[in-house]
């Protein structure tokens, strides 16, 4: 695979940024500073990072309720994300959206989404716009194993193949939809097996191996850009935390979590890059320090930002 050292370091940095951001979010949630629902991506960072490493600014993504990782990987800045999660006026959505709705269309981010399965049709639509405008851009749809059973996902995949849309469906199979294990919610071992129902390529990849994700999704993205239509990539992974913060997680075995923590994508990639001599231990520390500083700054920015004024309640409903 043709990839520069810088790119690999950047991917490592992004994964680490996501993790660090979220662990802080989890602390802030526990401290009662974040209202609503917060779904963390910890353990799954290799997916968003590996996929988005193939994307350009002009490409689009749709995300999910578990969106922080996708957004950061697509270029979202953590100070505006932190401000949003805290409901501040300086957040990506002026505090109106919160964790489940962070978006920035200018960055190609069509939003986290509170509705499971809402993303696939939206991504197909973004891909339709890309195809229509013919500028070589494409769309990527992140969705969960749970969302794979939703009718909207089926419809979007079917329409995407009928219209040969430049869209890549990234199934993040973390084995659970809240408490529902995939073993009880689908009878096929792989979500990728469903690609054959639409005659699109379906590939399974280790979702905790950022390079594997980068390569597999890179192929699919290239296909899409070349006008060869959609693909489905399934990334097998696991979430380290509960479904949302506050979930006691009684439906999972502790050992299962421990096993998967062994496969944590971040130390794994870190060790690999150090072993390959791409990064030194020194560099790792530097990266972590920089990220920490950036996060502190982001948090300060967010904390110091005002809440939106109540007069803003009524704006942004309609475009004049």
């Amino acid at each position, binding site marked *: 695979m043709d990839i520069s050292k810088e790119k690999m370091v950047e991917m490592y940095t992004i994964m680490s940024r996501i993790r660090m951001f979220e662990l802080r979010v989890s602390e802030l949630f526990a401290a009662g500073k974040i209202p609503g629902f917060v779904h963390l991506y910890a353990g799954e960072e290799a997916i968003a990072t590996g996929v988005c490493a193939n994307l350009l600014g002009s490409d689009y993504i749709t995300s999910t309720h578990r969106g922080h990782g996708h957004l950061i990987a697509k270029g979202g800045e953590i100070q505006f994300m932190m401000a949003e999660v805290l409901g501040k006026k300086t957040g990506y959505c002026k505090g109106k959206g919160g964790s489940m709705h962070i978006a920035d269309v200018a960055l190609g981010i069509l939003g986290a989404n509170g509705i499971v399965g809402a993303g696939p049709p939206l991504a197909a639509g973004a891909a339709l716009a890309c195809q229509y405008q013919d500028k070589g851009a494409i769309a990527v749809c992140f969705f969960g194993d749970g969302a794979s059973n939703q009718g909207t996902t089926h419809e979007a995949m079917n329409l995407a193949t009928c219209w040969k849309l430049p869209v890549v469906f990234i199934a993040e199979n973390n084995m659970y939809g809240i408490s529902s294990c995939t073993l009880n919610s689908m009878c096929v071992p792989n979500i990728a097996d469903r690609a054959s129902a639409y005659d699109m390529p379906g590939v399974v990849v280790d979702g905790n191996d950022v390079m594997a994700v980068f390569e597999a999704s890179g192929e699919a993205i290239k296909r899409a850009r070349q006008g060869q239509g959609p693909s489905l990539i399934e990334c097998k992974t696991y979430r380290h935390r509960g479904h949302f913060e506050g979930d006691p997680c009684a439906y999972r075995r502790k050992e299962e979590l421990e096993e998967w923590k062994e496969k944590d994508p971040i130390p794994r990639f870190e060790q690999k890059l150090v072993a390959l001599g791409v990064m030194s231990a020194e560099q790792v520390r530097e990266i972590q320090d920089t990220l920490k500083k950036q996060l502190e700054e982001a948090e300060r920015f967010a904390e110091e930002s005002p809440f939106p004024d109540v007069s803003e309640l009524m704006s942004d409903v309609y*475009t004049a």
Partner: protein
Amino acid sequence: MPTMTFAQALNDAHKLEMLRDPNIYVAGEDVGIYGGIFGVTGGLLDQFGPKRVRDTPITESAIVGTAVGAASCGLRPVVELMFVDFIGVALDQLFNQAAKMKYMFGGKAKIPMVLRATCGAGIGAAAQHSQCLEAWFMHVPGLKVVMPSTPADAKGLLISAIRDDNPVVFLEHKMLYALEGEVPAGDYTVPLGKADIKREGKDVTVIATAQAVHTALSAAEKLSADGISVEVLDPRTLNPLDEEAILESVRKTHRLVIIHEAVKFAGAGAEIAAMVAEKAFDRLDAPILRVAAPFVPVPFSPPLEKEYIPSEEKLIRAVKTVMES
């Protein structure tokens, strides 16, 4: 002015707008080669080709959802749901996505799309192909809701809806498609949010929508023979609702009857009545009456369907009742 049917007026609006703006595409089931089940999109495929006129599989969530996605990325979709009764399989993309994206994103999105659908009873299409559901769409912040009653309004409103930067639900009563009327040629708009007085009067205001406008006009004609002067007001768009025009008319006549085809309970007429009961209570000389469908699904059998649809007779009775009190 040329004369054309309601369906032709809508067709005309499509063609003019598609010529004007290359970012408009039309999609839906049977909108292309078939030209639309009611003929509204006839000829578009030949004129604009398959890139801009897209027949879809039977997949309403994806039809609406791709429109929302495409609109957020710069296109201007005009999609057809065929029958509004099918909204139940596609509603999420309309009310949770299209309508809310701008707000949820703090203003950072624009969803210029039109969702067209036919509504209404009258052809024996029964419970799942005859409903009027405008009240649902009215209740959704972020949507606009249009319901024309004449060919000229249909054309002018559809052009406005297509040019609007917000998601617009455009409801076409199926009994109106064959209605003929004069329609201004070429570029011509009717603004969203402006009611139209279809007949002036001074004794009682009748607010009517879609097909019921014609019931109201015919009742008004008969009532004038009894010496009752009826003002017929057609809101044309239910959201934005032209409250000022409604209040002005009621302040003049002091009496209000509302007629629409949807079931009365929690229908559009409830909002209009409630709004007037709040803002013009002191100007009212009589109870506000609503003439609307009874609380039953639309029946198939012709005599039942006829009884279901709010009739001229029922409207006349209601007008006489408010005149007597």
